[in-house]
């Protein structure tokens, strides 16, 4: 009895000593803060990245004013102020400065401000951009009448319009109105577009047909021999066609030549700020505007017309000018082909692994290998794609179906098809893993219900399991698509090129040319940013192209997610 009382008392004391307040770590508050902080940090990074890209991308095409800067030595330069920064002068440079400037720099611990001007006129100055230190500036003005012109060649021109020449007659600036100039320019541009159309499409078509005839002859030669009657017949046919096509070519060439002569006759005389003149055909100007004179609406007009040109034109000037239409199209086509290839392949593989294969060591090894594939560097896939798809598969296809074109490869080199298949291989683990998860998540009761109705396993899979797993499978495909669309390294080996103005789609049979090399926005970013002659000129284009790539991927993902959500809604209300 006594012992019991003592034990009770001891227990009471122990209870009293036990802490009654739950401490912070037990409540989990600090961990909650850490979790929230991690999320916030991630969000800030993503938002910051997007803000940087979008801000730089969106302002690129907005016309900036042009400053005319008079330097201390009396020289004048004109250009768009691009950015300013503080920099440290080297001692040698400092020693050479005039005393006033030297004192100014020394007062600032050897630092000075400088501004980067986009001066353009690469053909005259041999540079596009110029740094101007603040101590070197005597005067900055924004004079009227200065134009900013985009040219077909040599980049931009900053200066004034001096005169307009038509044939031998020269009209000085002031003797014609701006409307007249604009009308003449539009005419010249229309002629230029016509010349391009003739050269690219019509003469292109003639060349294509000529090539086809030649290949037909070669095919006959390969199959029947060079001294067979069939060969002689084909040769006669080729000659007849050749004459006919030659006549067509000559007509087109004459038309183009006439138009070109007309364009050559219509010239504009431009002068840069130091009055050096530059005479060029009016048609060589893509677009021009008086940077310091135009109002908000005119600026917005320039802004949107630049965007339109960017989205709908082919690249010029080593990709730093012009548009990116081939790259947009290439990225889009490649991603669609990638999905077309990866979805059935991944789903079928996962179906077999999950539904049919006997779950054992072998399947475990396969599954681990598939997961490991996702960790292989993408360039390795590029090497594999080039070696296997392009050289072995493509080479065999060429041997079998296009022997007449050899040694020129048709499928035996990088191209849209091989690039898509390489990326499909790269992203297939994502689809397999997601599909397996989705299949595993289909309730057993569904399968049993179907089997009990007398459905075979295959019927159960196709009628019950797959439709129900579809949203999960779509998630996998979306992830694969996002990964594939953003991949660049392997593409450089299997078909992406710096410039491929020919779209993989045209009017010649079979209309979609999967063997053609193509352009890609991701590679375009790399090329413009790091491979162009002037990285300063490419920099804004990097942001714009990045923005475009992000937008394109977001658009494709959004449509895939929309489809998935529709599928999911179909199965909503399920009680399992």
């Amino acid at each position, binding site marked *: 009895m006594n012992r019991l009382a003592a034990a009770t008392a001891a227990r009471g004391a122990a209870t009293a000593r036990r802490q009654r307040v739950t401490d912070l770590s037990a409540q989990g508050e600090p961990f909650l803060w850490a979790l929230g902080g991690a999320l916030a940090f991630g969000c800030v990074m993503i938002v910051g990245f997007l803000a940087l890209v979008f801000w730089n991308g969106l302002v690129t095409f907005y016309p900036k004013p042009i400053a005319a800067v008079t330097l201390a030595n009396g020289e004048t330069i004109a250009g768009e102020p691009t950015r300013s920064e503080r920099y440290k002068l080297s001692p040698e440079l400092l020693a050479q400065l005039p005393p006033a400037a030297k004192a100014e720099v020394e007062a600032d611990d050897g630092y000075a401000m400088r501004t980067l001007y986009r001066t353009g006129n690469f053909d005259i100055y041999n540079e596009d951009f110029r740094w101007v230190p603040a101590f070197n500036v005597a005067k900055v003005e924004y004079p009227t009448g200065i134009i900013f012109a985009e040219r077909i060649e040599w980049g931009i021109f900053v200066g004034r319009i001096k005169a307009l020449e038509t044939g031998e007659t020269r009209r000085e600036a002031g003797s014609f109105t701006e409307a007249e100039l604009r009308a003449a320019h539009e005419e010249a541009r229309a002629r230029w577009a016509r010349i391009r159309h003739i050269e690219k499409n019509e003469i292109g078509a003639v060349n294509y047909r000529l090539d086809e005839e030649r290949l037909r002859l070669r095919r006959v030669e390969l199959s029947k021999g060079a001294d067979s009657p069939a060969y002689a017949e084909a040769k006669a046919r080729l000659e007849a066609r050749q004459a006919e096509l030659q006549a067509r070519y000559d007509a087109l060439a004459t038309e183009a030549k006439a138009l070109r002569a007309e364009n050559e006759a219509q010239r504009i005389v431009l002068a840069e700020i130091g009055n050096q003149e530059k005479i060029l055909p009016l048609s060589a100007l893509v677009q021009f505007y008086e940077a310091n004179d135009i109002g908000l609406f005119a600026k917005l007009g320039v802004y949107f017309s630049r965007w339109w040109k960017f989205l709908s034109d082919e690249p010029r000037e080593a990709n730093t000018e012009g548009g990116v239409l081939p790259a947009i199209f290439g990225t889009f086509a490649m991603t669609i082909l990638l999905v077309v290839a990866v979805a059935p392949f991944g789903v079928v593989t996962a179906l077999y692994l999950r539904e049919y294969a006997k779950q054992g060591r072998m399947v475990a090894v396969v599954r681990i290998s598939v997961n490991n594939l996702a960790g292989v560097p993408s360039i390795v896939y590029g090497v594999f794609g080039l070696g296997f798809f392009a050289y072995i598969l493509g080479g065999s296809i060429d041997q079998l179906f296009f022997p007449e074109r050899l040694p020129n490869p048709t499928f035996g080199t990088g191209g849209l098809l091989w690039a898509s298949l390489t990326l499909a291989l790269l992203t297939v683990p994502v689809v397999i893993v997601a599909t397996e998860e989705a299949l595993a998540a289909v309730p057993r009761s569904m399968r049993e*219900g179907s089997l009990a*109705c*007398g*459905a075979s396993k295959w019927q159960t899979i196709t009628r019950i399991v797959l439709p129900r797993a579809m949203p999960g499978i779509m998630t996998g495909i979306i992830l694969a698509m996002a990964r594939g669309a953003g991949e660049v390294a392997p593409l450089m080996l299997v078909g992406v090129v710096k410039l491929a103005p020919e779209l993989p789609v045209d009017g010649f049979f079979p209309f979609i040319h999967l063997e053609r090399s193509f352009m890609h926005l991701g590679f375009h970013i790399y090329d413009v940013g790091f491979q162009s002659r002037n990285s300063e000129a490419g920099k804004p284009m990097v942001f714009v192209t990045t923005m475009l790539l992000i937008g394109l991927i977001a658009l494709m993902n959004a449509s895939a997610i929309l489809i998935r959500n529709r599928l999911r809604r*179909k199965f909503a*209300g399920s*009680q399992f």
Partner: protein
Amino acid sequence: MPAQAATANGGTIYHLKKGEQGSALDISDFCLWYGSSQALFDVTMAVERGLVTALIGPSGCGKSTLLRSLNRMNDLIDGLVISGNVTLDNRNIYDPRTDVIALRKRMGMVFQKPNPFPMSIYENVIYPLRVDGVRDKGVLEETAERALKGAALWEEAKDRLHESALGLSGGQQQRLCIARAIAGDPEVLLMDEPCSALDPIATARIEELIDELSGHYSIVIVTHNMQQAARVSDNTAFMYLGRLIEYGDTDSIFTNPKTEKTQDYVTGRFG
């Protein structure tokens, strides 16, 4: 029909009510192992054609396993070993030459939880015909109506045949599953605790339905609810630890069981 005099076979006491058309399924010396653990021991019983046979017993006694052995649903489980025979029309369903899919078409099955497919009510009901490749619209519609009427769901569902089956209540879903099970016109209906996920009102409707269906189909029902077994069945089999202890007419099992185990169980002393 008078109960047969009690007989014993391998420890099982039999005194079942005989149907007029003989037996639909004959189970003889049926043993089953999940890997190395034995779940059924020498079960021998005949399911009478046109009658309702209830399987009762405490959890884990093997009654669901036995039910699922009848249409070979257990085939899905890895490491399953069986011995003994289950015959349907004098053919052993465990014969390697048996077409399992054809076999399942002769046996409808209703599960513990209602499991309608994520499709319309109509598509759910005609699913057995769809997998048979029936395309004739007239046949499909006729079957759907017949099955839904058979499952007492027609009045509630006829105006929403093409809406999702997942919008039905639990009890309606279970009746839909019964409609689906009888749409293929099976001979045997296997029910695995069909009312365990339902409320009392829905349960009462399903029980009524079982009553209506008996005679037309041979029904085997697994239940935990002894009142239910007493209400709906003609014969009741009591199983315990994988063995069939007593198999007899329902009245005797509940009022005058022949073994102490059965007595203990039906009076609620254990289980």
